[in-house]
């Protein structure tokens, strides 16, 4: 058996030992997981960002323009001193400005405008029968919006609509919770598969 499989099997059992009670074996395995995840991500980021995008092109291919992001990056470290911390505002402002410039139009289009247009459907289908799906979407949309409308007290028509909105929200939360339970079960089944097949060789 490979050494990696043995370590993975022992660590899986160590993590599940938490189900008995909190214990040092579980804590050790948890710390390993966090440490390894951060360490792995750090190495990948260092290689793919600092080495591949900055160091190699700048010092091997002499792309002088890269001095600008290098200086901007170094300016971020000025935060460690109160006298020079104002310098870090320049790269932060640049990042927020460009980030917002790129993200806002895309998000507005994909998350708002496209979703709005998708929720406007004909209530009567082409063959003259009522479009039940469109009706449910319309009622769900308006009643849920009414629930989040706080400029007027939730009384009368708005109150009833808001109450109906809570039912739609509860259906959504229920479905999401159900799927989350399903997801966690799948993760557990995946580990059971690993333990029985690769680690213990009980099934093929």
């Amino acid at each position: 058996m490979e050494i990696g499989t043995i370590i993975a099997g022992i660590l899986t059992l160590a993590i599940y030992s938490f189900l008995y009670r909190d214990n040092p074996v579980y804590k050790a395995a948890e710390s390993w997981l966090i440490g390894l995840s951060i360490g792995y991500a750090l190495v990948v980021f260092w290689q793919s960002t600092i080495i591949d995008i900055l160091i190699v092109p700048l010092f091997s291919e002499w792309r002088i323009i890269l001095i600008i992001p290098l200086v901007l990056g170094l300016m971020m470290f000025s935060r460690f001193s109160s006298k020079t911390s104002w310098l870090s505002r320049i790269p932060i402002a640049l990042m927020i400005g460009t980030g917002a410039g790129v993200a806002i139009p895309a998000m507005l289009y994909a998350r708002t405008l496209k979703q709005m247009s998708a929720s406007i459907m004909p209530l009567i289908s082409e063959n003259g029968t009522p479009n039940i799906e469109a009706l449910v979407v319309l009622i769900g949309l308006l009643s849920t919006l009414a629930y989040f409308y706080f400029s007027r007290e939730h009384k009368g028509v708005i109150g009833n609509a808001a109450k109906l909105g809570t039912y739609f929200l509860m259906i959504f939360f229920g479905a999401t919770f159900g799927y989350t339970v399903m997801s966690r079960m799948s993760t557990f089944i995946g580990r059971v598969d690993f333990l029985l097949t690769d680690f213990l060789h009980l099934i093929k």
Partner: protein
Amino acid sequence: MERLRTRWIIFLGLAAVVVISYTMNLPFKTSASPATEKAYKYIETLPESSVVIISFDHEASSLPEIQPIALAMLRHVFRKNLRVIGLSLFAEGTAIGYEMLNRTAGECNRNYGRDYVFLGFKPQYISAILGLGESIRRVFPEDYPGNKTDTLAIMRNIDTYDSVRMVISIADGDRTMQWIEYAGARYNQKVMAGLTAAMITSYDPYLSSGQLFAVVGGLRGAAEYELLYGRRAAGNRGMLAQSGAHAYVIALIIIGNIIFFRSRRRKREG
């Protein structure tokens, strides 16, 4: 102590249900959902040598759920002789994606560099997704093993989304959203997803609006895909265990409610 004992009984019961139903390995009868069927049919209709991008946008912790989906879809695209460009927008997905690509390519006798390539990880996912629309070679001058992207046969005549028929994002979070927002909205690129079950409801509105072409969701999605593909694997085997676990949880909820109402009635009476 009584509470702790109840907890152990519940956990041990769940473990027993899952282990027993998993080892039984009975064929699980399921029918494919429209979203999974749409994903399968689209790949099925793609002409040979079409290019698909598969992005491994997930953490290692979701691997048990993600792997059956990814393997089922990868086996299908390789069996259909499609060319695959693999990449990752999540650092932890990099090595996992590379391993899964190599494994499934090996099963189908596909060659690295000609039939598939793994470009590796790119930080700043928004600029990476937008950059792929301008030039894939510029965003990834080298592939994951360190070959110059220019020199790979698969990359000949492929440099933007124009040559790519589909982006498949294998994700456990919101990375698919960025594919929809940037590759889908800006470059009109078809986006499909393989998602963990917990993420399905978050993406339902995008599936309904057509911004997301199709979804293969959770272990159930993997089982459905395996059914369509005609090769039972981890997804199908896991579904029996999952159904057993769900029945167990439902039984616990019913028993819990009966105990609750009986104890409440007893308190009222006396």
